């Protein structure tokens, strides 16, 4: 696929062209507050590329905070109505981390049925009941939005102090999950298509020169170098297992106030709640965001709560991202039809290193510090344990 050029002078025209083809969404400046958020734009004047990233990730366009599942009229079963179909959309200005996160969302919301040799054994033995592997459920709400949306990315030339996508096999100029990537090379954008959908958006635009591509490559390398954080991801899973009872967790969880900020601003977090609301005979079933950090998240109807303290919950979230999710999706390769571009990071962590949780946490907790502290403390604990064993002999 040929890279093309969109000059900054022609940017308004380019944006206007996109807006004609479909509903156009892009980061827009928040009114009376610092930051931007995805919104429906009329033209290029409303597009705001001033911030490193939007306050809320692009996941809210595919997995909205409030999703209508169906409406109903009380007392009649026949009245259940699905929501209106979503219109075609183009989303402009998606950072590579947010796009990569959508690929992780795909695994949760649009998982393919497992091949026969990966089916749970019980399915073969138990003939009485049908075992449905819940991982093969395709969420129609999510799928509809995904299939009707084209993603135009914006590469990062200046990652921030909280960015660490490279630690998770990502890249500030990464194309994974995008249809088209725009790279800012001074007075113009290099437009790099990665899918047919993306290519169609830039047909007819002047082709990029070798020098343009070289410039973009240099910027990508420089950007990547600014992110110093790295962690041995391969060993992380087993170390987290070893450190489950580590007393490091009490210290790490102390400042956490158990709000939902980290989960809501995270491009990969996807917990939700389903509630019914009814008013004057008309009602709806709604899906809303939920957070495993809320105290009541795991409270049972009996009143028992298996994760009663903040430490339990923070440990759970960290392990979910870096141990349980990779295990659940181990060995699943990537599917070209799902537009996975580039190699899939293995193991598959439920984190893309966007850094929003670090920036927005009211208490100032840094996930990178959490992982490093665990590393050190678990290593110490393992060594002490080994010493003990040797002495016993």
């Amino acid at each position: 696929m040929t890279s093309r050029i969109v000059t900054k002078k022609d940017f308004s025209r380019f944006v206007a062209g996109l807006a004609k083809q479909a509903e156009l969404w892009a980061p827009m400046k928040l009114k009376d507050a610092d930051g931007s958020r995805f919104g429906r734009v009329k033209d290029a004047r409303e597009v705001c590329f001033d911030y490193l990233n939007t306050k809320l990730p692009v996941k809210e366009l595919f997995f909205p905070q409030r999703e209508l599942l169906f409406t109903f009229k009380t007392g009649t079963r026949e009245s259940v109505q699905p929501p209106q179909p979503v219109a075609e959309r183009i989303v402009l200005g998606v950072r590579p981390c947010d796009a990569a996160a959508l690929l992780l969302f795909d695994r949760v919301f649009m998982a393919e049925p497992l091949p026969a040799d990966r089916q749970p054994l019980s399915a073969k033995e138990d003939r009485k009941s049908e075992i449905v592997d819940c991982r093969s459920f395709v969420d129609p709400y999510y799928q509809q939005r995904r299939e009707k949306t084209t993603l135009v990315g914006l590469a990062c030339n200046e990652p921030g102090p909280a960015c660490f996508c490279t630690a998770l096999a990502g890249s500030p100029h990464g194309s994974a999950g995008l249809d088209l990537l725009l790279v800012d090379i001074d007075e113009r954008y290099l437009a790099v298509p990665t899918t047919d959908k993306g290519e169609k958006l830039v047909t007819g635009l002047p082709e990029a020169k070798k020098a343009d591509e070289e410039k973009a490559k240099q910027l990508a390398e420089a950007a990547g170098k600014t992110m110093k954080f790295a962690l041995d991801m391969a060993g992380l899973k087993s170390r987290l297992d070893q450190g489950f009872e580590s007393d490091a967790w009490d210290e790490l969880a102390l400042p956490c106030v158990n709000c939902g900020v980290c989960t809501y601003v995270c491009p990969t977090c996807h917990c939700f709640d389903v509630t019914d609301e009814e008013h004057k005979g008309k009602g709806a079933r709604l899906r809303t965001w939920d957070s495993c950090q809320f105290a009541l998240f795991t409270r049972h109807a009996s009143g028992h709560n298996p994760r009663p303290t903040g430490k339990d919950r923070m440990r759970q979230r960290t392990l979910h991202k870096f141990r349980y999710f990779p295990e659940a999706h181990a060995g699943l390769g990537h599917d070209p039809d799902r537009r996975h571009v580039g190699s899939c990071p293995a193991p598959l962590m439920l984190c893309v290193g966007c850094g929003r949780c670090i920036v927005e946490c009211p208490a100032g907790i840094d996930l990178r510090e959490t992982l490093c502290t665990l590393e050190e403390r678990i290593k110490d604990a393992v060594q002490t344990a080994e010493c003990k064993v040797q002495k016993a002999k």
Partner: protein
Amino acid sequence: MQSAKGKVTTQEQIRARAKELLEQKLVTAVLGFREGSLPGTVVPTLVTKPEQSDSLVYDERCLHNLAAYLPRLKHKGKLAVIASGPTSRSIVNLIKENQVKRENLYIIGVAGPEFHHKDTKAPSVRNRSRGTPNPVLCDEMVGDKAAEPAEDDYADIAAFEKLSPEERWQELTEDLSRCIRCYACRQSCPNCYCPTCFVDSSQPQWVGRTTDDSDTIMFHIMRAMHMAGRCVECGACARACPMGIDLMRLNRKVALIVRDRFGHVSGMSLDTPLPLACFQTDDKQEFIR
């Protein structure tokens, strides 16, 4: 808190005191602040060993209301807390509401950081703490007292009230509609310690869980009502909000109502009763027919 020649900084004093208190076993832990990873940030921390005292910091970044950690901190033995003006006022309220015991705390008072530094980068003007910077209740004071600011004239509230009801409704609902219901405001607030918040109630479901405008407004109005006579205007809620909502405006209006009607300023003394839990027989009732 700049270190002048020969003068020990507040931070150094805090470290020294924390070390002494822990060495002498007068307290079993010190709740304070340590360095954060991003520039301009600090993180609340609990120091339990004397040698860890050097990790404590105190400067203009230390704005968290540490009192928020007290009700849920199940701590054995006496706990020392670094308390600025707003934090100490919250502690007074928590004691009055039986959420912490006075005898379990050793309050190390400090002057609030914001009042020393006029050129603080963040938070924005509207997110900063109000009221006295100096602790109202403490076992010892570290560092100098800050100059008391002029009495709060609530000019921002008066200016907002010049708008018509229609304009105020528009402005407030627009601001609040940005809310994503993350409850960072609630969780950062020392006053919000209910095991089940009214928004989390499901039987019955008082307030919908979505970001529907009217449900979101219900949450914020009722939280402001629950703050009446209790909010110390520390600004923790507004600083915690990821969406930059002006939460102080509502809380300040309620604080102003309580001050004007009942002559009460929250958290200043252990001896005054909570204003909405008491009454005067001659309270103004001009609004009742």
